[in-house]
């Protein structure tokens, strides 16, 4: 029987540290897109019962370390961590996305300044607190950004764009570091 080896989206590209900021790839585990058919409130109850977390409001993520539900756009959330419960697909499209996204974290003093070079959204602590999430752009790429911790952001772009993500972030990291 053939054995297929796995390869992560950013294999060979990361980690990298420039100045005070580090960019590294994250293995997010199972990622599942949840898109309720119509009203999300009924589905929210099923989600809560099955996984113990609320359906996230726009711009928010719910759950805890290892099992999160991240708002992912209009009528869509991304369940990150657990395998989706079998009851979910009665009321929503449940789609495996574990391999669809390149997931990285940008961490360190100045991470917010690096993102200010690429992202047209206010990501400072005052406006974007821990748990906040946004669908926005990183340079030219459609992205999902979540505040994962103090000076730590989790950034997701299409898997195929991993190389460009690393290129753009490294360029911004170098520019920020040059100002030190």
């Amino acid at each position, binding site marked *: *029987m*053939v*054995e*297929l*080896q*796995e*390869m*992560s*989206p950013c294999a060979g590209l990361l980690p990298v540290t*420039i100045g005070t900021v580090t960019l590294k790839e994250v293995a997010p585990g199972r990622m599942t*897109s949840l*898109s*309720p*058919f*119509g009203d999300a409130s009924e589905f929210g109850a099923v989600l809560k019962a099955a996984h113990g977390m609320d359906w996230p409001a726009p711009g928010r993520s719910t759950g805890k370390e290892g099992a999160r539900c991240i708002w992912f756009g209009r*009528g*869509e959330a991304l369940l990150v961590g657990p395998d989706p419960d079998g009851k979910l*697909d009665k009321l*929503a*499209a*449940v*789609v*495996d*996305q*574990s*391999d*669809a*996204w390149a997931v990285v974290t940008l961490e360190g003093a100045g991470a917010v300044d690096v993102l*200010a*070079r*690429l*992202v*047209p*959204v*206010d990501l*400072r602590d*005052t*406006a974007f607190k821990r748990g906040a999430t946004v669908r926005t752009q990183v*340079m*030219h*790429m459609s992205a999902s950004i979540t505040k994962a911790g103090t000076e730590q952001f989790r950034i997701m772009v*299409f*898997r*195929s*764009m*991993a*190389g*460009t993500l690393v*290129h*753009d972030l490294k*360029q*911004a*990291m*170098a*520019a920020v*570091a*040059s*100002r030190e």
Partner: protein
Amino acid sequence: MRVASKGLIDRSKPVHFSFDGRTYRGFAGDTVASALLANGVTLMGRSFKYHRPRGVMTAGSEEPNALITTGTGARREPNVRATVQEIYDGLVTRSQNAWPSLDVDVMAVNDLAAPFLGAGFYYKTFMWPKRFWEAIYEPVIRKTAGLGALSGESNPDTYERAYAFCDLLVIGAGPTGLMAALTAARAGADVILVDEDSVMGGRLNAESEAVGHQSGALWAAGIVAELAAMDNVRLMPRTTVTGAYDGGMFGALERVNQHTSKRGGGAPLEAFWRISAKHSILAAGALERPVAFQNNDRPGIMTAGAVRAYLNRWGVAPGRRVAVFGNNDDAHRTARDLMAAGVHVVALIDSRAEAEIEGFDGQVITGAVVCNTGGRKALESITVRSEAGEEALQVDCLAVSGGWNPTVHLTCYMNGRPTWREDIQSFVPPPGAIPNMTVAGACNGVFSTHGCLSDGVDAGTAALKALGKKAVAVEVPVAEDADYALVPLWAVAGKGRAWLDFQNDVSVKDIKQAAVENFRSVEHMKRYTTQGMATDQGKNSNVAALAILADATGRGMPETGTTTFRPPYSPVAIAAMGAGAQGHGFAPERHTTSHKRTVERGAPMIEAGLWYRPSYFPKAGETTWRQSCDREVGYVRKAVGVCDVSTLGKIDIQGPDAGKLLDFVYTNMFSTLKVGRVRYGLMLREDGMVMDDGTTARLGEHHFVMTTTTAAAGNVMRHLEFVTQCLHPEWAVSFTSVTEQWAQFAVAGPKARELLNGLLDKEIDNDNWPFMACGDVSIGGVAGRLFRISFSGEHAYEVAVPSRFGAALFDELVKRAEALGGGPYGMEALNVLRIEKGFITHAEIEGRATASDVGMGRMISVKKDCIGKAMAARPGLVDAERPQLIGLKPVSAEGEMTAGAHLFEREAEAVRVNAKGHVSSVGYSPELGRMIGLGFFAAGPTRMGEVVRLVDHLRGVETEVEICHPVFVDPEGERARG
């Protein structure tokens, strides 16, 4: 020359730079202009049109004359203001627009021809013959008139773009801006303070006055230090706000490393900021305007405020024998400061007979004007005219003030029209010109320092109120609070040329000539004379030019109005606006999981949308792409080929109403498709034209996977959003892009099943996996999907696995294909294979083709409605004479065909009106041993077997071709089912 004990420069840090090949010494804190003046260099440039010698006129970004080129080689940067460029060790600068040198410029002959070169000269002279304009006149004029030149090489510098957000953006850090920022910051607002200068403080750094109990410059430094220590304040020196846009958005250019030698290593030269502010305060100050008189442009003549700035800020006396000429009390300061610094002031000339001069005990001439000057490359004398007659004075510097113009520019960027204020003889911004912007201080016509300080506090307080924050009391320090007294003086009467727009060489005469020729509207006058159209946008000349036009046309200033200021406030390099988009930053590059291996095999990559796909996989000994392509076509026709098709759009559609959605967006029926089966579908736009095509598989009762073409994936997704959000929001259906989740490969050819059966955990055969079947499979324990579909007409499959296994599966497939006499194939082979089968791509469905044009009219189901159905039935779209899909082959086996060529009847002349169709796709068919193609021809299906003319005017190809059925290979479709 330097004046001891004056200036904010650091005399302990000498700095060496060069200008026109000569090395000069300045100090840290100097600009090129101040350092050159300190070295006695007053000639800094040649004028645009007449190549007249010019020196520096101002001390800020409004400078019209002293434009220099910095850097060398590819790093050369033209039209840099010497008044803005700070010096650093190793800085190389040179003058521009002079040949052979600044000192001896032969083009100055233009100045002698000046009587013929006035406003409108080009329009009148170079009208005939018409074709001479582009070929001769314009290139010659451009060569002789102009600014600095670009290097023509690729720009090696790094630029940056960035976003910033704040409660309050304060534009300008003079006394007004500092107090506004302080007021808001102390109350806890999130403040960004921006100033174009390297040192914040504005005019306080250029004056000798006191604020509170210390010098203005020291006071400003103290406030800046307080602000810098606050977490809620961001100071942005060397940053110019270049534009105001909708929604509280501002553009700003930061000169990050223009003042240092730091290059490379990711360090940006400049940064272009987009600043989003809830509220803004414009505290941009005012610009001093000169007075127009004959020969008022000689090096050594500058604004009175600039003379004070060079003296007080940089410790430079711009001359040894200085005269001061003005129409207002403010000009008197210059005479006082110079005298106090020990510089000889020859005379203070005030145009007002009743002017009272305090604190200056040198020669005062009131009720007098300067009416002419002498000298050529430097000012040598001025002529003063008074009731007593004309008197010549020997001077090497003349400080001129015609009053101050509030810097209203930013308030005009959203169509605000400034209003005229008689008392200050200038324009001020109208209230509310920019939403949520407060205008304060000198740019709102408040000209005393105390007035500005308290206006700043008021503006800060108003901003806090607008932001819903509570203000805290801020004390306004004691400062100068003199009245701003002036009597208008725009131009001194007299012969000769009195310059208004120094950068574009526009004189008072030109403005008057425009009025005579009935270009009476300001906008017409501007375009006729080019006044205000230079890179400085006429910052020094606009108001005076309007005053002269108003006078010439017998109207007042308010009726005359102003021209329209537009962003950017000062020039911005395109490189800064496009920062990050050079090279790999231009667009995202989408790579498939097989990308690395494909590139390793030497495949040239082509872009499809943002994706990179292999053109072909060259092998040793092959010298042309055709050899590789023919070989790869052979793999698929004779053995087995492997192609990465992950780039095709894949949309997962789920829900009880999924079938309804598909029936509505596709022309044909999908709700009846059996689970485990795939169907080809055609999708129309609302207007009835074909939008996209592809296959959709039914994986479950409520579960489909739609495929789209690579380039149209985004469009189809958007289309589905539109349908489900706007047309049928009641449907219980959701869809998700799974393009990135699955790595998918075509395995095509007579040995396709043999290859797969060596790989799949459970073997397949023709009964359990017939043509157009689909379902789950397992490959080495990895859950995948298998679709038996064919874009080549051969026995073929597409196999999909989660992307993490994509690279490994590609390797495995290629290895096994090679063992069976096949291998990987690229886009060229894929294209030939599909043309041989008459399968369409976006070369055929390019937006103008209907379903019936591509021979699929009967795919529009009569049993149901679908998007585009009604519009597709319009008479023009069902006309039998429309060009319709046909196959094409050359009559002679060697005949050449090109995509994009037009088709004509055999005997018709090959001109546009006779075109009967065109060629959409061509390729060389190894199976037929000749080129084949697809195209469109009027009523084409009725013309089978006829010979027509193919003409490609662009590439000079003409071939006799035969119209044939578009399916060249296996028309019965036996192979795909086998």
